[in-house]
């Protein structure tokens, strides 16, 4: 069986966060969702995110919940199929109440832009140009 990853991220309002990511085109698995957490499908069978209410999240970690609008522990980077997909997702995120901390970066072999969701979690979207290859470390 292939490895799956699930990112648990704390959110202040599960319903608002579901609406935010739904407007970006992501769907949810109702089987693994309730009022305290919603499972968002990023890539069926391999990559999921659990949007988890802060109270529930805290019960899982034993440490304070980092307020992601003030400081970050993680940058989640997702590959996209095209430059247009990167731009379109960022545009939808901003329209739905997110923000973008950086302008789009075009390095030729790679196009990237990030957005912050409603809780300050940072998502970076990257399109790697298949026409070029690099040995640079990139994220």
């Amino acid at each position, binding site marked *: *069986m*292939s*490895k*799956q*990853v*699930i*990112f*648990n*991220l*704390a959110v202040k309002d599960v319903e608002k966060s579901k609406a935010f990511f739904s407007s970006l085109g992501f769907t949810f698995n109702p089987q693994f969702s309730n009022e305290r957490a919603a499972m968002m499908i*990023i*890539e069926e069978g*391999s*990559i999921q995110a*659990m949007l988890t209410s802060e109270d529930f*999240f805290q019960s*899982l*970690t*034993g*440490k*304070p*919940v*980092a307020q*992601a*609008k*003030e*400081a*970050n*522990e*993680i*940058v*989640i*980077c*997702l*590959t*996209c*199929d095209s430059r247009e997909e990167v731009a379109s997702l960022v545009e939808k995120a901003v329209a739905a109440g997110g923000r973008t*901390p*950086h302008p789009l970066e075009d390095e030729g072999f790679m196009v990237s832009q*990030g957005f912050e969701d409603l809780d*300050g*979690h*940072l998502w*970076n979207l*990257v399109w790697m140009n298949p026409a070029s290859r690099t*040995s*640079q*470390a*990139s*994220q």
Partner: protein
Amino acid sequence: MNKQIFVNLPVKDLDKSKAFFEALGYGFNPQFSNDSGACMVIAEGSIYAMLLTEPFFKTFIDKPIVQAKEATEVLVCLSCESREEVDDLVARAVAAGGHTPRAAQDHGFMYAHAFEDLDGHIWELVWMAPQA
């Protein structure tokens, strides 16, 4: 094309973190690694972690870095093939200098345990019973 994910996490000492995850059995992609970051392969072609030095990580955010030993923004949960794999990874993590925040949880259909890495990032390991 399938979506791929790169989990970018800040680390205080890249070499020590690489050694830690190597002790757990993970390999690195040298093509995407240098002095500022190391690309750890979790599932080839799909899931990677980028261990980034704090100064390099900082260039991707416009906020301070969370000190993960003190507060948590994310739990990275990985599926395992068996209960034994869950236990083995946690044992290796503890032997390599990590620690486990709690005892294993056995729900019958699901077996879960977790470890904190050298920087305090929490990794959850879960085995789910194949659906009948």
